[in-house]
């Protein structure tokens, strides 16, 4: 269990209880949304039909999907409100911002993978891959909520917008769902489960703790800051790194 703390190994707190709860929430939510949504998108597959019938029929599945969507929306709003509040109150650093360093980190990592550099990129609290996952799900989530609402209330929407908005929303909703699913299923699960450093499971999001050894390898800048006793440092060289994403600041607790 490489992902789990070994005996006597020094552990560092990485996630607060709120984040652990939030992760459980999103796991549950996306599982339901994917099961009920993708089975509708791929309705012609035998497995989808079996699943939909097991869940009580197409009408039930659609209602479960909508309620799970409402739950997801609430979670997303909570995430943003907490993040904005945390940053505004000065308790948290805007560590999830996409910065120029993320792009240089990606290039640096590529060089390392191809043997052109002797060490991987030195990342802060969240590396560029984690940020990519977060922002795709966050932005995709917004798109899903928006298009989902259009599909839920087509009569209301077509009172003010042209009718073609409905099939357009359907195209966006189903394609974006597939994109998020691939990022989650393919990448996130591989990184959190099958990655050789953490296999069989990266437990940090469940326990809240990460080993110092992994911290030193994956988040050396944050480790240095923690060990220097700076509780919530701004992102490294903040002055030179302008946010590249939308002005949504979130996550990044140093509790």
């Amino acid at each position, binding site marked *: 269990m490489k992902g789990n703390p070994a005996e006597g190994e020094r552990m560092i707190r990485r996630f607060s209880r709120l984040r652990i709860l939030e992760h459980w929430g999103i796991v549950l939510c996306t599982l339901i949304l994917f099961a009920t949504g993708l089975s509708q998108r791929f309705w012609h597959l035998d497995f989808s039909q079996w699943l939909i019938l097991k869940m009580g029929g197409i009408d039930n599945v659609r209602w479960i999907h909508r309620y799970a969507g409402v739950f997801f929306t609430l979670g997303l709003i909570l995430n943003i409100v907490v993040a904005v509040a945390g940053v505004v109150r000065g308790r948290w650093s805007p560590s999830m911002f996409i910065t120029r360093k993320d792009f240089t980190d990606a290039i640096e990592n590529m060089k390392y993978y191809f043997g052109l550099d002797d060490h991987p990129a030195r990342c802060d609290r969240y590396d560029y891959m984690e940020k990519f996952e977060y922002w795709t799900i966050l932005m995709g989530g917004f798109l899903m909520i928006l298009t989902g609402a259009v599909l839920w209330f087509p009569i209301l929407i077509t009172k003010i917008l042209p009718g073609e908005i409905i099939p357009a929303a359907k195209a966006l909703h189903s*394609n974006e769902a597939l994109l998020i699913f691939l990022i989650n299923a393919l990448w996130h699960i591989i990184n959190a489960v099958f990655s050789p450093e953490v296999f069989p499971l990266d437990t940090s999001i469940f326990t809240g703790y990460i080993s110092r050894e992994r911290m030193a390898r994956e988040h050396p800048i944050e480790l240095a800051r923690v060990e220097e006793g700076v509780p919530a440092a701004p992102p490294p060289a903040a002055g030179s790194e302008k946010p590249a994403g939308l002005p949504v600041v979130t996550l990044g607790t140093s509790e």
Partner: protein
Amino acid sequence: MIKGKGLALCFGLVLLAVASQAGHARESDLSAQAGKCLQCHAKEGIRTKFAEDSESVPARVIPAAFKDSVHGVLDCTACHAAYLPEIHTKKRFRSREQFRAATTSACRGCHSNAQIGGNPIHTNFLKREREGEAPVCTDCHEAHSMTPVSGGKIFTNEKQYCMSCHRYQMEMICRNKERIPLKVDLSELEKFAHDKLRCSDCHFGFSQEEHPKRTFRSRRDYTVASSESCRRCHFDKYTKTLDSVHYAILSQGNLNAPVCNDCHGAHGIAHVSHTAKGRVLTTQKCRKCHPQVYEMYSKSVHGKALIDEQNQDVPICIDCHTTHDIQNPLTLQYHERIPQMCGNCHANPSVVAKYGLSIDVLKTYLADFHGVTLGFYKKQREKLYKPARPIAVCTDCHGTHSITGTGSSNSPTVKANLVKRCQKCHPGSNENFPNAWLFHYKPSLSKHPLIFILNTAYRIFLPIMVIGLILQVLLHVWRYAVNR
């Protein structure tokens, strides 16, 4: 031993002689009196006139036919008591009616009412006689070529036996006084599908030996009862009809529900015809009970093509409603089968391609919201519960029997009409709402470009992203392995 053989031989010879005598007796010459009468009455064209008018009846007797008849052994005066060969009275009948009455009374001189009533066929005649309507024996029984009734064995087949009576204008009177004609036109019968059958194949219980007396409450009762005969041979079709809406109505006591004979006829059962003419005739059969539906159909794009152009590609009633197991079209189950019915032709390139119609109509419907829901409802109906919500199918937008071409100006698919149809299930929807449906078009740059661009963008971006992510993972694992 030799004595025994001799006796047997003698006995055999005697039998042969007796049999030969009997044969001769059967074919014996006519009586001397008949011979005398026939000297004149065998001549062609001999007629007798009635006194009151100039009408006449043939007075010719064909000697051979008379000789073979059951009455061939009689003297002419046995029936024609007023005439003798020596004294051929000048007596003339006043009219045809008197003549007919006189011939019947001649028969009744030998054949008692009890004897006549022994045959159930005669029961009705005797009854009518009591009511004042006297039957005339010679209407059915030829006067001078009367054949013996004992077993009817002289007929070469059963049909000939039955036709010996049923070629005449006869009627069966029902309890409600309705009359059922019993005359059968053999020449017509032989043109149709059942020309090789014997009468008793359908009229079971009747034969050359038996002719049971049956009375029916009404003519309709008789038709319904006689349709039961069909199942003896067409059991597969009969079992199908048991599942039909027509049988359901019939079993509720409504005798107006159609039975086999109503569509197929009784003696004039036609061969199955797949020609345009045959298909038109089929629609006419349904029209008998469903005139309003036929009226709509005949004005529809399908009906016009059938009737005006003899087009064989267009559907007729039975293509959608089937023939024998016709289901109630007002049920949800029937409603849910409609896309498949329309798809039988509209998704078949060999049928619709020549008219420039798209074959994607079924596919695009099934892939959209309504089609997907409908598909699940059909499955759920079998396994889960019965969804009561009807889902829009082809006919909800295009119409059913009154379906018009989508290009015509009064087409129900034009948006103004379409929004009304949408509002039936989606109350409050406005004129923008129908555009949520892509009208069977696959998105392309010319039709629904926004959807096309969105789908294409994802189609390009998704594989690139997936390949990128997989490469990142593989590189990571590879580097990890190299470092170890």
